Every structure is written in structure tokens, then in C-alpha cells.
């Protein structure tokens, strides 16, 4: 379904092949709670993969499919997390409303900021996004009474969701919450896929491939980049709200530019110009980080070395490399 939209015509895989890939991805995601414990993992780990995968896929709308680099997406992720957490703590005990509030907070902040920087390009665009992202980190860090400061925002719980006579109890640690997240993830991913297949998505690709030509064709380039940036921020903020619900906790590190770097590296590990790449990259990154940090205190060097290795020797990422092999 979705993979077609993003492949250039010459690089299309056979239809049956694509169906197979989709079945495999959703099959793996749906059965996680059954096999992950057998491998020594825990379901929260899979939840983290979904959350970071969604955030990185949101970022990839901008990075991979519009060709614009944001190195500050943690800001919108963190705003989503804080928006959800603060809503649950101070306003209403409602999970859907908290998610709505968080997504709107992060998405609208991105939309407003996007207006200021859409004329910047390349590394300067990235620099503005980093600097602006840190604003929220300092705000969360120093506004102690409201946000919990450096210790993070606690004292809120995800709430059961009522559907008329039924109640979906997602408060426990079990697989119910994982499936709830998977449902949200699925809806978001389908939206993303439809968006990329639409004329709007094709226009983004045109801008990525050749901005000047797109401009000469009369495409309002700035408007499209701005929209792409805002939409991408909304998706990342949605992921942020799930992060807060998953941990019942939001901390300033969810806003820090290191996390923005992690999102970018997840996207690159998986393959920037592929639809599912960021999810795969997130899985690799989360598992590696979990494993390394349990083995050594020097996990920073390992993570840094992974960054450098990917850049120097593996710039196309996993799916990008595979696709090149298949089509070559």
C-alpha cells in the first residue's frame, strides 16, 4: 500500500513483494507481546520502538520526503509529552483529551515556528531548529513549580478510555496498552501513507528532487515546506503524547537536542528515503541502547560510534541498501 507511493517509478518492487513486506511488518507488530518475552525482552521495549518509530517516521516526512533537515524535532515530541502529562495532571483525567492537547501543543508550536524559518535552507535551517528546540528544554528545566523541573513531570496516570458501555482499561502494564498504541500508530501511519500518495506528497518529492525546477513550475515551495514541517511536527507530537502515557512520566530530556539527534540517526539507520525505514531504525536503536546501557556505563561512546559508523560507512541505511540491491 504505502511503499509504492514513495518509490520512484523505476525502482518499484513487484506488487506481491510489497504485499509480503506489509504482511510481515504488521504480523511482527501484532504478535510482539507473544514472542518478545521469549527472547528476553519486555513489552514496554516494544512500546518504545513504536513511539520512537512514529516520531522518526513523522520526522522523515520532512527529512526523507521533502529533503529538509530538522535537528530539533525533540522539541515537538517533548511538547507532546508535556502537553499530555500536564493535561492529565492539572486539567482532566482523560487519555484521549490529553493526547489531543499534547498533539495540538506540539503541532501548533511547530506550525508557528515553521513560519519563521521556512526560507532558510540546509544546514542553516537545521541550526535554527536546534536553537529553537532548546528553548523548550530550558523552559521545562527552569519552570520548576509547573513542570517538575529537572526531575520531570510525575503524578499523572493514563486513564481507562470509555466507549459508551465498554471501557478499555489501558492502565495496567499488560499488552492492552501496547495494542492501544499500535492502533494509534496504525491510524497515524495510514494517514502518512495517504498523504504521501496524494498530489501534495508528490509535490514534496518534486521539491526534494529539484527545488528550483519545482519553483519554476509554479509550485509555492515555501508554503509546501511549511506545511510539511507542521504536519511532521503534529505526528512527532502525537508520538510524544504516547511516550508520556507509556511512562506516566515526562522529563526535560524528551525535549533535549540529543533526542532530536537520535530521531535523525534512527531515520538514517533505517533508510531516509524509505517509508518504513525509520521504524526499523528505531527498533535497532532502542534494542542496541537497551543492550549497551545494561552492559557498560560508557554507552555514550558506543552511541556516538554508531552515529559515526552509520555516516561514514552506511549512509543509505538498512532499507535503502536492500532496495538498491534489489533494483540493481
Amino acid at each position, binding site marked *: 500500500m504505502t511503499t509504492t507511493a514513495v518509490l520512484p517509478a523505476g525502482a518499484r518492487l513487484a506488487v506481491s513483494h510489497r504485499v509480503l513486506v506489509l504482511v510481515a511488518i504488521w504480523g511482527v507488530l501484532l504478535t510482539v507481546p507473544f514472542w518478545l518475552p521469549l527472547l528476553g525482552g519486555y513489552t514496554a521495549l516494544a512500546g518504545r520502538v513504536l513511539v520512537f518509530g512514529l516520531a522518526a517516521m513523522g520526522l522523515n516526512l520532512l*527529512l526523507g520526503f521533502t529533503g529538509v*533537515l530538522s*535537528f530539533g524535532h525533540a522539541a515537538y515530541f517533548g511538547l507532546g509529552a508535556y502537553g499530555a502529562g500536564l493535561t492529565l495532571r492539572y486539567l482532566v483525567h482523560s487519555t484521549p483529551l490529553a493526547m489531543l492537547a499534547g498533539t495540538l501543543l506540539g503541532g501548533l508550536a511547530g506550525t508557528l515556528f515553521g513560519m*519563521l*524559518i521556512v*526560507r*532558510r*535552507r*540546509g*544546514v*542553516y535551517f*537545521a*541550526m*535554527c531548529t*536546534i*536553537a*529553537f528546540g*532548546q*528553548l523548550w528544554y*530550558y*523552559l521545562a528545566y*527552569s519552570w520548576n513549580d509547573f513542570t517538575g523541573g529537572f526531575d520531570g513531570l510525575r503524578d499523572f496516570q493514563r486513564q481507562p478510555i470509555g466507549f459508551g458501555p465498554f471501557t478499555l482499561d489501558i492502565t495496567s502494564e499488560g499488552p492492552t496498552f501496547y495494542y492501544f498504541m499500535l492502533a494509534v500508530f496504525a491510524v497515524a501511519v495510514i494517514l502518512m501513507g495517504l498523504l504521501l500518495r496524494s498530489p501534495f506528497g508528490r509535490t514534496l518529492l518534486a521539491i526534494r528532487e529539484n527545488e528550483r525546477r519545482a519553483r519554476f513550475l509554479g509550485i509555492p515551495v515555501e508554503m509546501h515546506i511549511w506545511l510539511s514541517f507542521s504536519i511532521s511536527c503534529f505526528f512527532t507530537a502525537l508520538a510524544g503524547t504516547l511516550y508520556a502515557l507509556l511512562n506516566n512520566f515526562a522529563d526535560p530530556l524528551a525535549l533535549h*537536542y540529543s533526542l532530536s*539527534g537520535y530521531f*535523525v*540517526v534512527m531515520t*538514517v539507520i533505517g533508510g*531516509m528515503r524509505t517509508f518504513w525505514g525509520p521504524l526499523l531504525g528505531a527498533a535497532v536503536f532502542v534494542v542496541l541502547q537497551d543492550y549497551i546501557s545494561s552492559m557498560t556505563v*560508557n554507552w*555514550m*561512546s558506543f*552511541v*556516538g*560510534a*554508531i*552515529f*559515526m559508523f*552509520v*555516516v*561514514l560507512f552506511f*549512509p543509505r541505511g538498512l532499507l535503502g541498501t536492500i532496495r538498491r540491491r534489489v533494483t540493481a
Partner: protein
Amino acid sequence: MTQVILYNVTNGLIIGAFYVLMALGLSLILNLSNVINFAHGNFLALGGYLAFTLSPTLGYWGALLVSPLLTALIGVAVERLMVRRIYNRDPVYSLLLTFGLAFVMQDAARYIWGPNGLPLGLPAGLSQPISSTLFFITWYRIFMVSVVIVTVAGLFAFLRYTRVGLRIRAGTLDLETVSTLGVNVRNLRTFNFALGCLLAGLSGVLAAGQIGLNPNMGDDLLMPSFIAIIVGGVGSLIGTLFGGLLIGMAAALTTVVYPSASEAVIYAILMAVLLIRPRGLIGEEGMMS
């Protein structure tokens, strides 16, 4: 009250001086090679730590001279081995590379010199206050600011009056033409990267004398330096200079009125500049697109 204000003005001057040294190095590398060096703060820490290791044998003054040069030498190695490979690729790769490098360098510093803070000893005369009424101004602070002024003046003179400096400035505008004219651009970029690292190393030695050493001492300076560059105007070193002084002063003076907003005021300036004058205070139109 005057003393409080005077104290914060000198503080602002010193913080601004550090922002300026950091931001000028970052700006040099950014302008010529289009690379944001995330590891710049770690080169700063490296300079400080090297001075700590060298000062027992070379003395403070020897360490002050040698450790920035050593930092620059390590910069040469980093550029030759890694950064050079990604010049012609998408900017995402240069950011990830230096970002990863920053992590590795920070962990390496923690591994070699330990996670706890270390002091850098100063010559006896420098740590004295200049007078009893101005007890908060030590000779060291005056010394720091003078070194920064001399360095910045030297840098601008170098860029203006030497052949290499001229090439760096020309390369900022159009590297391809400079290359066509027969200049070895590869070496020029290496030299320029090392020059940036030299400035970072020097600020590291100076900062170590004031606040001591720790593995992430450069982190707090990195973001304000980015902002100084954007506020001053990307592509203009003079802009970076004023940007650094402006936000250093603004942060220090806000501390007098409302301490917890000193960080926020930097970002307020950033937003105002992006909103009203996106090219930066002294930047040229088109440099940032």
C-alpha cells in the same frame, strides 16, 4: 546597587567573550565548509584538560600557549580522517558525524580525566582582586578579557591581511571559484577547521581557570554560540562577534533584574531577530538560504 550592576556587567563581558571565541570558531568552519561542528564544546573541554595535564611540566603560561595548538592538531586529524569525507554530502551527515564525535569525545574525557570536576591552578598574582572596593574583579578576569580581545583582533587581522586569510574569506563566498584559481581547497579547509579548534582550545584553557574542568564544560556554551551566529548573521564574522557580546550582556543584565529569565532572554533575542530581521543583525541577504 552600582556594585551589583558593575559585577554583572563584567560577568556579561566575560560570558560574552567566551561566546564570541566559541562562536567565531564555529562560524569559521560553518562558513567555509558548511559543517556545524557539534563537537566544538568538546574541543573546548579538550583544550582545558590538556592544559591541566601540561601545566605541571610547562607551567601555566606554557600550557596556555601549547594546549590550544595541540587541540588544533587533533582538529587536523579529525578533519583529515572523518569530516573531509562528508563535505559533498547532504548536511544531515555532517551533523550526525560531529554529533557522534561529541559523544565519543565527552566519554573519552570522562574516561581519561575522570567524571569529577578538576581545578586548573593559576599563577598567584592572577587570582588576586584588583582592589578592595572592586573585590569581585580578579586580575584573572581582566587577563581573560584581554586575551580574548587580542585573539579576536589577531584573527581579524589574519583574515584581512594574509594570503591564507584572504583565501578563507574568498572561499566563504565561492569555494568553487577559489579552487579553480589554483588554491588547494582541501588544505585550506583543514587549516580552517584547525583554526576553529584552536579558538575552542584557547577558550577551554581560559574557562578552566575560571570555572574549573569537567567533561561536559563546553555543552552550556554550544547553544548560545549557535544563537550568537544566527543573531549576528550567518556568514559574517563581525556579526558573530557582536551577536556573542550582545547575548552575553543581555543574559548577564537580565540576571540583575530576574535571574531565572537569563536563559530565556537569549531565546527571546533569537526569536525577535528571526521575526524582524531574519538575515541577522549584520548578515547579508541570501547567505542563509
